[in-house]
C-alpha cells in the first residue's frame, strides 16, 4: 500500500480515517505495533519525529513522503468529495460539525468517560459539568435530527463520521437506556451510521451501553 497510517491499536481518533478510507476504497496500511511503531514510545522516537514533527497519532504517510497529522485532516484527505461535502455550502456545514465535535463534544466526553476507563483522574465538578453539557448537546442534536437522516445533505459525510466517532465512547461506556431515552433521534442516527458496512468494517459490532460504567479510583 502506498499509503500508511500510524496509530495506537484500536484508537478512536483513527476511526474517522479508517471509515473514510472504506468509503473511498483507498488501501491503507495500518501500523500500530513493533517493529515500525512502539505504541508506548512511538510518537516520541527520533525516527517518528523526523517524519511527523507534530509528535502524535494518527499520522499519515502517502506517496513521495507526503505527511499529514491530525485526524480531521487525514480523514479529509483519504475520503471522497461526497464525504467532504459537495459545494461551498455543504463543505462549510461539514466543517461546522467537525468543529462542533472537536469543541463541544470531545472535551465533555473525555471528562465524563476517561475516568471510567482509568485514562484520567475523576473530577466530580468536571464530570458533572460534562454530563450537563452533553445533555444540552444531545438535545440540540436530537432536534436537528428530528427531520434529518444525516447531519448534512442526504447522505453520510465526514460530519456524521466525525461525530459518531466522538460519541462512540459515550454510547459504549455510560449512556445507558435511561440516559439515552430522551435522545431517540440521535440514537437512531448513531445506530444507522454504525450499521453502515463502511463503519462496521472498522468498528465491528457496536454494543450500546446497558449499565453505565463507574469511574475507576
Amino acid at each position, binding site marked *: 500500500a502506498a499509503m500508511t497510517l500510524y496509530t*495506537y*491499536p*484500536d*484508537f*478512536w*481518533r483513527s476511526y474517522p480515517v479508517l471509515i473514510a478510507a472504506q468509503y473511498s476504497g483507498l488501501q491503507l496500511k495500518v501500523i500500530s505495533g513493533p517493529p515500525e511503531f512502539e*505504541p*508506548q514510545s512511538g*510518537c516520541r522516537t527520533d525516527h517518528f519525529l523526523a517524519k511527523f514533527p507534530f509528535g*502524535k497519532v494518527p499520522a499519515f504517510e502517502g506517496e513521495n513522503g507526503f505527511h499529514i497529522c491530525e485526524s480531521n485532516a487525514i480523514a479529509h484527505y483519504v475520503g471522497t468529495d461526497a464525504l467532504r461535502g459537495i459545494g461551498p455550502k455543504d463543505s462549510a456545514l461539514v466543517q461546522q460539525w467537525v468543529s462542533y465535535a472537536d*469543541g463541544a463534544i*470531545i*472535551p*465533555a466526553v*473525555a*471528562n465524563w468517560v*476517561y475516568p471510567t*476507563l*482509568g*485514562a*484520567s483522574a475523576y*473530577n466530580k465538578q*468536571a464530570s458533572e*459539568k*460534562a454530563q450537563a*453539557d452533553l445533555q444540552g448537546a444531545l438535545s440540540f442534536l436530537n432536534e436537528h435530527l428530528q427531520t434529518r437522516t444525516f447531519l448534512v445533505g442526504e447522505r453520510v459525510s465526514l460530519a456524521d463520521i466525525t461525530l459518531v466517532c466522538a460519541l462512540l*465512547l459515550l454510547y459504549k461506556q455510560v449512556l445507558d437506556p435511561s440516559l439515552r431515552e430522551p435522545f431517540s433521534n440521535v440514537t437512531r442516527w448513531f445506530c444507522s451510521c454504525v450499521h453502515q458496512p463502511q463503519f462496521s468494517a472498522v468498528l465491528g459490532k457496536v454494543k450500546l451501553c446497558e449499565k453505565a460504567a463507574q469511574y475507576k479510583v
Partner: protein
Amino acid sequence: MSAEHLAQENIWFDKYRYDDAERRYYEQLNG
C-alpha cells in the same frame, strides 16, 4: 483502546471553564 494510550492524548479537559470565561469576558466587555 488502552487507557494508557488515551492518557497520552491531548484533550483540553478544562475547556468548559474557558468557554464560560470567554463568553462572560466578551459579554461584560461590551456590557
